[in-house]
């Protein structure tokens, strides 16, 4: 792989995992909120 290929790979992994982790937190917040609102 070229140097830029490795760099792209690394940044893809980093930014991709930020997106996934932030998404998982947002998803869990929404799910918990809905469960609380449903429980009235």
């Amino acid at each position, binding site marked *: 792989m070229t140097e830029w290929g490795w760099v792209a790979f690394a940044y893809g992994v980093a930014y991709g995992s930020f997106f996934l982790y932030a998404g998982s937190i947002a998803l869990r917040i929404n799910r*918990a909120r809905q469960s609380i609102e449903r429980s*009235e």
Partner: protein
Amino acid sequence: MKVQTRIRWWPWAAVALSLVVAFTLSMISPRDDVQGELVRIMYIHVPAAWLAYVAFFMTFVGSLTYLLTKNLRWDRIAAASAEIGVFFTGLTLVLGMIWGKSTWGVWWTWDARLTLTAIMFFVYLGYLALRRTTDDPVARASRASVLGVLGAVQIPIVHFSVVWWRTLHQPPSIVRPDSPAIQEPLMLITLIVGVVAFTIIYISLMIKRIELTHLEDQLTEIEHSTDQPVAGEAVVVPELGARP
């Protein structure tokens, strides 16, 4: 029931903005004489490692303060920070492997820094698993905070392993006995901006993760306060003998 936790949106904007700024600078900073373009991996690998330390240090602070005050708020901080720390440690390991393969020539080797980082990763994964052994917030907090305090011993050991022992991994460039080893100003600025950006990301993730912890606790409380069984109507007793 009303949701009692304020849900903020701005941390997500802060994360996005930090990433854009850090990314731009990482791409325009000069290439390294030895490593060429591969040096750009440093601008995400090093901040990820630093924020892993910061996160686990916050877990230590939260755990210790919980043990002293028995205030569950501190346990929530410790828990949120541990999860984010595990995320950053995992990211550090993966980025390190990519950097390792492209510069050293191997994805992984058992040198002191790599081995100790992997152990730190699994210890805090153990911390998260330990938190799942009970639903009782007080029991959970006291079990976890013992490990949260003990685990922090690893932070300085991991960081200085490259100074104390002869490793394949290079010694630190910034926090080290001598003056910083990065002479090129734009490289140093890029790294510092990277660390600042990742710190903003850490704080933002903490705010959201603590929100989540509040909601989860609220949910557990609701489940325990109602007379219904926890699983509710979702569980249907299988009928024996009801064959077609």
